[in-house]
Structures are given as C-alpha cells and as structure tokens.
C-alpha cells in the first residue's frame, strides 16, 4: 500500500485538521469528527455526513450556500449518533435541522437515532434520504437503492434553499424535489484500498470493468471488458434514461470521478454524454465535471442527471462557497 498517511487509525482526524487549516472559515471538532461553519447564521441548519473516503464529500461541502456541518465516520463506516448529535446541537439556530442521508443501513440507523436524541432535547430535526444509484435494487449495505454522487446536488439545493430563510419544511421539500429528479449510474475500473486494510477488497482483471459498482466496492450489475468512452457513455446513460423520463427537459449534468481517474478522461466522457443528450433532446442547463463523490483511490466514474424546474434552477445557480464547490 502506498498512501500519504501516518497511521491508518488517524486518517480521519488528520484530514479534517488539514481542512480546518486550509479553510479557516471552517471549524473542526476533535474526537467527534465534525467540520462546521465557524459562523452560525439564523436559518435552518443543513447537515450531512457518512463514512470517510468519499472526499470532498461530505466535509468539503461545508460552507456558505451548502452544508452547515458534516459528520465523518471512519473510512466507509457510518458516524455514530454521538457525533451526529454534536453537529445538530452545534448548528441548530432554533429553526430546526435538516439531515441529508445517503441510503446505507448504517447511516439510516445512526442518523435516525441522532434524530431521536435531538427530539428529546426539543430540537426539530427532519431528514431526507438520497437513493440516486439506479444500478441495483438492494445491495450489500443498503435496503433499496444506494446514495451516491447525486447527493452533492441535494446538498446544493437544500443549502441554497436554507440560505433564503425558508422554513424547515420548505427546505426539506426542496431537497425532496431534488431527490425525486436525480438519477446516477457508475462504473469502476480498479478497486480501492482502505488505509486500515492495506490491500484491495476485490480484484478486477487488467482489461475488466464493473458496471454499477458502489462507492464502497459493492457489487454492480455486470463485469465486462473496458469500452471506449462513447460506449461507456451509452451504457451509463441508457440505464439512467430507462429509469426516469428526462425527455424534453432541462437537466444539470454531473460527470464524477471516483478518485483515481484523470480529469482528461472525465471530460472525454462528458463530451460523449453531452452529444448523446443533445441527440435525445435533453437540454443541459449546467455541467459539473470533477471528483465530487469519490471512493478513495478507486478509478472509475459516475454520471448524474437532475431534472430542473424554475425553482431548482434558481437554487442551483445561487452562490455557494465551499472547498468542494464554488458558484457565483
């Protein structure tokens, strides 16, 4: 294993300390692994989190216009409720807290219990669950679809809505509208290595890729030989379009890298996706290309579409300033 680390057990606290130093507007709470906005504003607080290893998700989306705090668990494992409750109580400004959860059993349980704890303290908490991955119905760590890169759009939409001074219910409704309109599909080319494990959790042949693999290396839908960018674009997009009707609509497009894929390749893929969408008369309103939701050092990609209406467009365009995403 070649990794720039000190000790596997310290990766989470050390990367968060690094983020705090690089971004002085963010504050790190030691031991509880919470990264939050230093400035607490008088609005609904939006928080998210999950296992580490998906950077910049979720800590990288803390800041103006997106999350108020992110809670990090160990690599690929959910944060415990005591960490989540810290983020809730710290950022609650009396207007309530919205939790954005990716659909994994561990996250559902831990965030669910944190919500119960918060309610015992009379803090209003609502939650939304992102299940954008169309690859598989159930998987190793989830009942129902997995939450992947589309979650970043949900952070953006909910965060922007909260900045307008909207109520908890309104922020939740905007997040749910985004979730309904988001679908993603991914592909992996090489496995990832957890720092504490030291070797890959599975193997892929030299010329082999796995379509629909999850962001923790969970099984996808099929293994096949490496295809051209054009063929890959077709496979991923077809699966998304079979699942949800995007025809005659305007969409936000995200072409996401899983950690070890060069941006050049992501842009090549994006170019193909744009061509296909144009053929299908789906208009791309805004495009995002980069590493937004990764799986450590896995190479591969995912494609996400979010169907937009006037409200979602406005919220997508609203300014945000976070380490992982800046608009305006």
């Amino acid at each position, binding site marked *: 294993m070649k990794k720039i680390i000190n000790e596997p057990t310290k990766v989470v606290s050390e990367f968060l300390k690094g983020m705090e130093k690089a971004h002085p507007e963010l504050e790190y709470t030691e031991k509880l692994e919470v990264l939050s906005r230093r400035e607490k504003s008088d609005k609904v607080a939006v928080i998210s989190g999950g296992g580490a290893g998906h950077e910049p998700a979720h800590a990288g989306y803390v800041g103006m216009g997106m999350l108020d705090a992110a809670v990090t668990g160990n690599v690929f494992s959910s944060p415990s*409720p*005591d960490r989540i409750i810290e983020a809730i109580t710290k950022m609650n400004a009396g207007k309530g807290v919205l939790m954005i959860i990716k659909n994994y*059993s561990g996250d559902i349980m831990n965030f*669910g*219990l944190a919500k119960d*704890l918060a309610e*015992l303290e009379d803090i209003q908490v609502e939650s939304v669950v992102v299940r954008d991955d169309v690859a598989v119905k159930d998987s190793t760590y989830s009942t129902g679809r997995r939450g992947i890169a589309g979650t970043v759009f949900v952070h953006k939409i909910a965060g922007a809505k909260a900045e307008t001074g909207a109520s908890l219910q309104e922020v939740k409704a905007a997040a749910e509208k985004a979730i309904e309109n988001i679908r993603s599909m991914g592909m992996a080319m090489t496995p990832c290595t957890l720092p504490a494990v030291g070797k890959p959790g599975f193997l892929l042949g030299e010329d082999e890729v796995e379509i629909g693999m999850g962001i923790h290396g969970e099984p996808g839908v099929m293994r096949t030989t490496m295809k051209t960018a054009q063929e890959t674009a077709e496979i991923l997009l077809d699966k998304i379009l079979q699942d949800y009707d995007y025809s005659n609509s305007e969409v936000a497009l995200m072409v996401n890298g899983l950690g070890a894929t060069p941006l050049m390749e992501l842009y090549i893929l994006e170019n193909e996706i744009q061509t296909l969408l144009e053929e299908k008369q789906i208009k791309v309103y805004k495009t995002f290309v980069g590493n937004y939701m990764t799986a450590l050092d896995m190479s591969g990609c995912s494609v996400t579409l979010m169907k937009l209406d006037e409200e979602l467009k406005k919220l997508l365009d609203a300014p945000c300033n976070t380490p992982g995403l800046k608009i305006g």
Partner: protein
Amino acid sequence: MGFHLTSKDYANYIRKAYRLIHEKGDYITELDSATGDGDHWININMGFEKLVEAANELEEMTVFEEFKKIGTIMMSVIGGSSGVLYGSAYLAAAKTLKEKETIQNENLCEVLDAMLQAIMSRGNAQPGWKTMIDSLAPAVQCYKDCILNQVDEKTCLSRVKQAAIDGAESTKDMEAVRGRATYQANKGVGHLDPGAVTMSYQIATLMDCVLEKL
C-alpha cells in the same frame, strides 16, 4: 399491590446482568465465531461494564433520565449496529416513563414493547430473522397475554423469563436474513444467535430482579 421498580432497582438489575454477561464471555464468543464477527460479547460486555461504572449515578436519577442515560451509554460504548439498536430501545422505553416515579407491572410491559418496536423499526427487521428480536418478541407477547388474562404477577414474570429463554433457543433452527451469517451456505442453521442469547440473559435477569420485589 404489585411491584414498584425504582431507578435504584433498575441499577441493581444492571449490575446483575453485567455479572451474568461477563461470566458467559467464552460461550458467547464461541457462538459468535460460528456465524458472526466474533466481537458481539466484547462489545456488549464493554457496554455493561460502563453502565455498572455509572450505576451509582443512575440510581439517583428519575427512571426517565436513567433510561435515557443507559441508552446514550450503550449507543456510544457498544458501537456498531448493536449499540444503535440498544440505544434506540432504551430511548424509546424512556419515552414511556416520562413523569413516572417507578415502573409497575403494566409499565414494564410497555417498556419492553417500546424496546421491541424500536429495535424492529430501527433495524428494519422482523421476528424469525435470527436476531435479538427472537428473544424479545416472544417475551413481550407473553407479557401482553398475561396482562390481558390477569395472570398473577409472579406467574407472569416467570413466564416472560421462560419465553425469552425459549425464544433465544428457537434461533437455532432459523436462517439468518441479515448480517454475516447470511453469507454461509446454511445461513447459520444449527447455531444459536449470540445477540438473541445475550438479550435473553438481560430479560431473564430483569424478571428475576422483579420477582425478588414481590
């Protein structure tokens, strides 16, 4: 008159349950190694150890605060899904004890039922899936039946205890639906579920403690 369980009584129960769980370490770990990660006992034992350390403090609280505190400790010390499930169970039970000074017969049934519902909904699991639910669910059902049929408290508590023990025993023939045992060819059939066994220890000890109050 019936029993009145105080926060002090419940703290005493915690001490006794810890003794039993602690004693059974090798046995539980052996069960767990057959089907699971082998860490169930270590985690639950550590949870109860912390509860015992906090027992003097627990005694002084209202039963509502006591249950809340137990839930919080279990959640953070046991960790993993067991920690969340026990934490959820105690918090749900705490809600049924708001403004109560002691726990009486029907309250205790409500407490166990609230725990069962919380574990089922948080874990998204059903009876028959070879989990701790398979000890708790029959115990709750038995308790409800006894109350409905106005069975005297002494008989009732003994029956609940037995139902929990038999329930744990029944996991031997079940196929696992969740967790590591599902990856085995026979889905764990022929092995007891360690989570159900430690649950039955807790219920049995609790019933014994209450019986002593009669």
